[in-house]
């Protein structure tokens, strides 16, 4: 019998990273012409308590349903959640000290040094995790000062002081500068947190993972193979997946859905039994829209590294997994054209029609779930709302709903955006944890995840991309 692939467990993490915002791509560029910028940025960053209780973050880790966010008045940063907690049913948030500690635990080439005070704080916050990779080592404060004085890297800030340093690994290699290595190490560390939590929550022994697919956007390599990869295996090593190998799937923001489809196909074919799909945080995207936030008097909200991991395996095990309907997979073919109508025809309508289904047979659509509070001040609009309105318009054109029902379609089958603006992270998949819970409660029968990718950003094609899949309760 052909195994029915299912998403068995989901895991999400947010690592507070105020000290790394100044090294986001946008702040770095802007600071070149404005040396006062890092100090102004620091002044507009939120403390841990505010970040932890920020309603969209609580949705991301599962403590609040997306529908619950709709009833919280905007701006959400002024309406923090009273009952907020750093741990949720399928996710958790960690402090910056824990993040630096994780990066140190993931640092196989001694690139990073943190001072003893920070190391001690990190050890205290990572009890349990640290045992798997030994002790988080700290350096004397004057050693950090000396490293900064010598140059050849970047000072790392924490609680108002330079508490660490990351060095450039090769002075003549643009792919191994401290800035690039910081991005890659942050992606590795945050992904490792999500994968470790995933395995712990699922109860699956790390040794039983057969394969890992990384869908993050960082380019790991050296000057001869800038995007060589495979961060997946590096993360699997940290998580103790000693029997797994892995590879990376690259497709801009659409990569997580490509990766989940590939994982589903691997399980369905019998090639592997347990596949982990993972994505780490994008350090380059921290503070990306900071200018608009500063101007509008909002705090700088791109202050967390987000990560996620999914366990894909056979759905017949009797658990509460979500079956990936491979027969309803959608793709945007090269020849399809890039108008909104062509994209949604390919991603949504065509796969549903193949199975004799209509758009209203999907209870919930998960599109790019960018937090609108982050994107609207910069002029990028409310991305999920625009997508849901477009889907509703498609349903009108197809005669499935009336024009006056568009708002209801959007409210019932959509959701507000709640994910950090880190490329692959918002790609529909942050809803999977909520979908699983809703299916468990009998509140959801069928959800469709739709992701799109802006391939043109790499200047190699004018094309966009997109893929989609449908999940349903796996059943007994």
């Amino acid at each position: 019998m052909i195994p029915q692939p299912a998403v068995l467990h989901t895991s999400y993490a947010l690592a507070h990273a105020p000290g790394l915002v100044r090294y986001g791509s946008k702040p770095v560029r802007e600071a070149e012409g404005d040396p006062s910028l890092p100090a102004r940025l620091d002044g507009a960053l939120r403390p841990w308590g505010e970040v932890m209780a920020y309603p969209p973050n609580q949705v991301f880790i599962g403590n609040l349903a997306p529908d619950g966010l709709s009833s919280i008045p905007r701006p959400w940063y002024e309406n923090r959640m009273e009952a907020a907690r750093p741990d949720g049913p399928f996710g958790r948030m960690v402090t910056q000290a824990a993040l630096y500690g994780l990066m140190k635990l993931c640092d196989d080439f001694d690139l990073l040094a943190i001072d003893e005070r920070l190391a001690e704080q990190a050890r205290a916050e990572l009890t349990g995790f640290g045992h798997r990779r030994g002790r988080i080592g700290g350096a004397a404060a004057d050693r950090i000062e000396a490293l900064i004085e010598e140059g050849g890297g970047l000072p790392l800030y924490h609680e108002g002081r330079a508490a660490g340093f990351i060095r450039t690994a090769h002075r003549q290699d643009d792919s191994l500068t401290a800035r690039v290595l910081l991005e890659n190490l942050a992606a590795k560390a945050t992904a490792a947190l999500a994968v470790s939590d995933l395995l712990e929550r699922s109860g699956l022994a790390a040794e039983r993972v057969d394969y890992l697919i990384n869908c993050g956007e960082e380019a790991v390599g050296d000057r001869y193979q800038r995007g060589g990869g495979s961060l997946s295996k590096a993360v699997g090593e940290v998580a103790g997946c000693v029997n797994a190998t892995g590879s990376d799937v690259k497709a801009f923001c659409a990569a997580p859905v490509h990766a989940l489809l590939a994982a589903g196909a691997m399980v369905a074919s019998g090639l592997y039994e347990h596949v982990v799909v993972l994505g780490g945080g994008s350090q380059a995207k921290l503070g990306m829209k900071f200018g608009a936030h500063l101007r509008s008097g909002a705090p700088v909200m791109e202050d967390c590294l987000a990560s996620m991991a999914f366990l894909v395996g056979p759905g017949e095990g009797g658990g509460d997994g979500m079956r990936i309907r491979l027969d309803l997979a959608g793709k945007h073919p090269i020849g399809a054209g890039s108008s909104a109508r062509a994209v949604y025809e390919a991603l949504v309508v065509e796969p549903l029609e193949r199975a004799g289904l209509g758009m209203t047979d999907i209870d919930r659509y998960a599109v790019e779930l960018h937090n609108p509070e982050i994107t609207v001040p910069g002029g990028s609009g409310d991305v999920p709302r625009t997508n849901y309105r477009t889907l509703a318009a498609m349903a009108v054109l197809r005669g499935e709903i009336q024009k006056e029902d568009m708002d209801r379609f959007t409210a019932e089958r959509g959701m507000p955006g709640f994910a950090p603006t880190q490329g692959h992270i918002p790609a529909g998949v942050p809803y999977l944890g909520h979908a699983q819970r809703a299916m468990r409660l009998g509140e959801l029968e069928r959800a469709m995840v739709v992701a799109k990718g802006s391939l043109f950003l790499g200047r190699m094609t004018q094309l966009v991309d997109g893929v989609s899949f449908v999940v349903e309760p796996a059943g007994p």
Partner: protein
Amino acid sequence: MDLEDQANVNRLAETSGTDGMVVLLGQPDANSAGLFAETVTRGDPTWAGPLAGVPLGLPVYHVLEPEIKAQMDGDLYDEHVGLMELSADVDEIIKWVAFYREGDS
């Protein structure tokens, strides 16, 4: 508005002049359409790009405006813009783009 787009508009205005130049927008919501329209008329309100403090005063229209629609092939318009025409808040978008186009700045 993207800094690269601002630089392109600025370069075209400098090299070819603004006579006969029209900016056509396609943003799906009033907020971003307004920001773009403001940028090419009064200058970049975010003071981040090449059009900061550069009031080009270019005529700016949105693809959803009737005078633009009337100049396009109907089938092509339906294929590329029909969905947005149905899903976007057309009146609000037109109001803001017209505000900056016709404003007395």
